């Protein structure tokens, strides 16, 4: 029974070193946004909750992209 349940979890999936691999960050960012807002909002109502989650999701992505740009520029200026 355990073997059957774990069958899909016994071998890792293939993930290439491609720019598309960064897309795997999106589900995790979504989960972080949802859980964080679920703990922080005083009352859970569908529309405000979804809006707040969306704002946090976008903020995290924007700041990650900005951080990546800053690091890229820093590396170009220092290492070349």
């Amino acid at each position, binding site marked *: 029974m*355990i073997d059957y349940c*774990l069958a*899909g*979890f*016994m*071998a*890792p*999936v*293939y*993930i*290439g*070193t491609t720019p598309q*691999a960064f897309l*795997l960050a999106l*589900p*995790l960012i979504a*989960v*972080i946004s*949802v*859980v*964080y807002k*679920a*703990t922080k909002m005083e009352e*859970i109502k569908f529309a405000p909750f979804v809006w707040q989650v969306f704002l946090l999701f976008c903020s995290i992505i924007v700041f990650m992209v900005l951080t990546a740009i800053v690091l890229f520029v820093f590396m170009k200026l220092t290492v070349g």
Partner: protein
Amino acid sequence: MTQATAGKFRLPSFGFLFLVGVLGWWIPGAGHWIIGERKRAAIIFISLMFAFVLGIYIGSIAVIDAGTPWYWAQFLASPGVAYLAHLSGSVYHLDSFGKPREIGEIYTGITGMLNLLCVVNAVYLAHCINVKERNK
């Protein structure tokens, strides 16, 4: 000692907080469920289970390795993680490497840390219930 009430549970305040914390750790969202925050509990359970299952799907259960520091973050998701570590290490002798392992570790580790946040939040909300009961 004051009595805290949530649903049919009636326990001394410290016992109630302890129960909320332990339940929240064993089953993500259960701490919120027991204090009556059903929507929050469902959102937390579904989100954390999704992230954890996606993590072990990407990297296999070999990403739960008791010999790495990530294990302690993963362990915060539930004590059931220890059983998965036992299965992957001692029963099936699995291993995974490279990017899938990294991503799996990040997903499962962050799930554990998010669950810690939820446990702390559930205990805090339970404490607020205790204070409200005391002031009645």
